[in-house]
């Protein structure tokens, strides 16, 4: 037995090896490691970890089952609250959620809840265990827009309640950001994402790909066609750029484009047709999870990668594990640095980037200290590609084509935090379409809230 104060370490691919492949970085716990880690859990009566979880997984209960080596029971406990445990175990920011509340974490290290969740989900998949399908259908039809974390969760919950659910997905593949955004080395597509999507389908959910709500069909048409309610989980939307000179040069990409080419279109594989620019030196601008994903993808495609972020390390919005992994792999962090211009040659190809040093001033609206430019500190860095990872602004496709659907000042759909209801009766929304770019698990939380809201709405109609 190891030190009870410390997490059982998780095996990972060696940084030097993984920097050149797209295989998963984290190898996860084996059975012995999982049981040992589960044994560290104090099984608190008032388990604070559950409150830290946006979908309130009964964490202490499932960990107790792992301790007893009853993994199937552990899986069914998780499945009561989450449709995507193999995903969440890999991509949730546990340190600020469940693990951040863990009592064990007060004196020592928190329980590795995420790694245990992943172990249970992977074990279930490898052993052909699926979530329990509903025994009876209630005959009510609901449409869900988008098959990302919010949509899949909402659909899964509604299916479990007996609803007849159809998901409409704009892309050719289900999964939303899990398919186009998060890279293979963090979230394997065929083994993990596709399997969790299959699990949702096995609960009776239909997924129609290649249907863009707002274009191929409208929300109003769905309602007219007999869907009693619609949940909009259409995701984040349009990538933002800085508005600096040179930004439309060849070699400047949004992180969305770069990641979509690589992850959804599989440009990193020789047998797929979609091209991706193989740059020698890449500058990624931004400090979130998406920036880390873009940087680590560029590295694996053979580039020397610098990450430029205007605040300091403490303010990096990315998960701690991603920052740690990125550094291990050799991504260079240029912190307190902000681009002012992208430099190009006569063919409009990127040749470099001019940046300015920043320092932290007074706290801004977000509570973080505002970065201010240091006068006269401009400098140039050579590079042949720049990837902008600055967040997104909402996609107007649905809000502009749905009668009576209100949006806020930032053009996000307005939806109640209590039940996901929008200004339009029967239309619910959640996830990035409502909050702007956030995390997988928050979108799942919103999907859950939406499912409850829709259930209450349909019941109230009798």
């Amino acid at each position, binding site marked *: 037995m190891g030190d009870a104060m410390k997490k059982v370490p998780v095996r990972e691919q060696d940084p030097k090896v993984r920097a050149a492949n797209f295989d998963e970085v984290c190898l996860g716990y084996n059975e012995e490691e999982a049981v040992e880690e589960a044994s560290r859990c104090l099984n608190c009566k008032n388990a604070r970890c559950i409150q830290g979880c946006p979908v309130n997984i009964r964490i202490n209960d499932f960990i107790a089952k792992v301790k007893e080596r009853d993994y199937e029971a552990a899986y069914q406990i998780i499945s009561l609250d989450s449709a995507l445990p193999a995903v969440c175990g890999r991509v949730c920011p546990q340190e600020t959620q469940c693990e951040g509340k863990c009592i064990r974490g007060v004196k020592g290290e928190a329980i590795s809840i995420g790694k245990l969740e992943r172990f249970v989900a992977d074990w279930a998949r490898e052993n052909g265990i699926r979530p329990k399908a509903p025994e009876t259908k209630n005959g009510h039809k609901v449409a869900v827009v988008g098959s990302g974390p919010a949509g899949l969760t909402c659909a899964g919950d509604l299916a479990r309640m007996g609803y007849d659910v159809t998901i409409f997905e*704009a*892309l*050719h593949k289900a999964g939303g950001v899990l398919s186009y955004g998060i890279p293979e080395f963090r979230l394997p597509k065929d083994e993990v994402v596709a399997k969790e999507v299959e699990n949702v389908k096995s609960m009776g959910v239909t997924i129609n790909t290649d249907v863009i709500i707002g274009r*191929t069909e409208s929300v109003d048409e769905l309602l007219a066609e007999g869907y009693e309610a619609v949940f909009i989980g259409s995701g984040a939307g349009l990538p933002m750029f800085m508005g600096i000179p040179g930004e439309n040069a*060849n070699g400047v990409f949004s992180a969305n484009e770069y990641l*979509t080419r690589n992850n959804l279109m599989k440009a990193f594989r020789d047998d797929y047709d979609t*091209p991706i620019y193989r740059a020698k030196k890449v500058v990624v601008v931004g400090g979130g999870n998406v920036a880390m994903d873009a940087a680590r993808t560029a590295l694996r495609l053979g580039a020397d990668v610098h990450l430029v972020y205007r605040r300091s390390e403490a303010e990096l919005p990315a998960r701690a594990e991603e920052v740690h992994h990125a550094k291990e792999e050799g991504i260079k962090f240029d912190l307190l640095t902000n681009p002012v211009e992208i430099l190009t040659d006569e063919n409009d190809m990127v040749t470099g980037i001019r940046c300015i040093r920043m320092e932290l001033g007074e706290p801004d609206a977000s509570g973080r200290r505002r970065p201010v430019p240091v006068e006269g500190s401009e400098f140039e860095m050579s590079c042949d590609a720049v990837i902008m990872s600055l967040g997104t602004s909402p996609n107007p496709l649905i809000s502009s084509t749905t009668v009576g659907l209100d949006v806020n000042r930032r053009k996000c759909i307005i939806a109640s935090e209590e039940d996901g209801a929008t200004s339009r009766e029967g239309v619910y929304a959640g996830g990035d379409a409502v909050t702007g770019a956030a995390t997988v698990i928050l979108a799942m939380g919103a999907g859950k809230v939406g499912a409850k809201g829709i259930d209450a709405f349909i019941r109230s109609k009798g």
Partner: protein
Amino acid sequence: MFKILEKRQLSEVVWEMVVEAPLLARHAKPGQFLIVRKDETGERIPLTICDYDAERGTVTIVFQPVGVSTMKYLELEVGDGFADVVGPLGRPSDILDMSEEELKSKKFLFVCGGVGTAPVYPQVKWLHERGIDADVIIGCRTKDLLFYEDKMREVAGNLYITTDDGSYMHKGVVTSVIDELVAEGKKYDHCVSIGPMIMMKFCCLTTEKYGIPTVVSMNPIMVDGTGMCGACRLTVGDEVKFACVDGPEFDGHKINWAECLKRSQMYKSAEGEAKLKYQEGRTHEGGCGNC
């Protein structure tokens, strides 16, 4: 799967396919585009919707096999299908927003070339169905590249055809026809130009000279086509727009053409390599040192 119901060669280099896509066909309008993916390993390629039949549930696409993806489309026969056909994407054409009086008060000119001739057809047809006869100029390098002549003649007011080499009808480029028509005293209030980017650019330079408002349909590099990737961004006036959601039609007099032309070259060498690999197998392994 989206089944191919018809396949025909329109000219030496241009092909047309009629594809089953009922939901798309029911919502398509002139000016919009769709995205095709042939199979699991294929690219997502944006193509302008060239015609649609809501009752039959079909859309018509016209393409010139220049890259590997469109070359692979030719492997498909009637009865086969595309893995994905999604749309309609983009905003419908501006002319659809005009009131009947506005339409009737205007004299329309369409200027097209290459595969751009195909998406011009439904717009001219749409006007014709409302009793408005638009003038149409079709330009091509040589007679063998011309298509849709009869179809277009049925719906156009006056049809002018011009070939670069003079092998058919007028000799010269499309802008020389515009110059001649204006010199003859013709007045136009609205021009729509669809074709190769360089043709649209020069068409716009010419119509700007005569003060004819001109709309062009842009077909830049795209991935998803729904606004997510931003690859299709272009500068219109002093704003950056996404062709997929803000377009594909824009005021041609405000477009930064130099930027658009350069951006369209982004994957030229990758495309060239892919084409060689497709046509000749893996003979280019390791590179020849010249490219």
